[in-house]
């Protein structure tokens, strides 16, 4: 599979090195959209998964509407805990008046050398035509939050 949902392995190591700061006044994170076979830039296909270490332009969808290559800035929600699980969350992200076909996304650290955080697999191509393309993050709890450490 060209795009496989995963927390990037390098990210796990970088957590131990203190590379990523998810505090609301911490690092800036972005979300970039990717296509597998159609909707991508220059007909390239994205290959993203646990081995991804940094943002790449290969397979990224083209700029359209309010989506610009490099992706959109994420609004962080301060990390918290529930039971023995720590988790963090982001506000939903929307791109408007955009024509986009995307199969997945990459969350990366825009402050620290575009280092990869997590790959999101949409399971199928999601499309907007001159419309809104919204990524809704899951409920921020110990079982569902977008990034969890248990």
């Amino acid at each position, binding site marked *: 599979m060209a795009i496989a949902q995963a927390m990037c392995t390098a990210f796990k190591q970088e*957590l131990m090195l203190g590379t990523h700061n998810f505090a609301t006044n911490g690092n800036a994170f972005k979300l970039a959209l990717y296509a597998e076979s159609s909707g991508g830039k220059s007909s390239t296909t994205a290959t993203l998964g646990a081995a991804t270490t940094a943002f790449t332009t290969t397979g990224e969808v083209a700029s359209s509407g309010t989506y610009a290559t490099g992706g959109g800035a994420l609004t962080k929600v301060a990390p918290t805990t529930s039971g023995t699980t720590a988790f963090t969350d982001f506000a939903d992200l929307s791109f408007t008046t955009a024509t986009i076909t995307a199969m997945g996304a990459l969350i990366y650290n825009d402050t620290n050398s575009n280092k990869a955080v997590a790959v999101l697999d949409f399971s199928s191509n*999601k499309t907007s035509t*001159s*419309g*809104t393309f*919204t990524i809704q993050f*899951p409920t921020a709890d110990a079982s*569902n939050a977008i990034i969890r*450490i248990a």
Partner: protein
Amino acid sequence: MFEVNIGSVGSVNVVSSDNGGLSNDQIADMAANKIMYISDEAPEPIRLQAEAFKDRVRNLVQYYVELARREERATICAKIREAGQHQLADAIGRL
């Protein structure tokens, strides 16, 4: 030895539209999904009750989203009409 079970990534929900913004229904679904999460593993009677409640929440949100949009359009129409653009105000009012 400490073993940390690290590395869970949640599933996102992608909502999209064509030739315009998201519909009232789509926004209401998104809000309901944020307000309530119902586990697939919940006992059936509890899950059914939770789903019924979530449906009520969704319908309530849908009503107020529609109301908010209608009132916003009314305000925009009034401002445009004040500026002398009556045809444009009428067109927006018909949305």
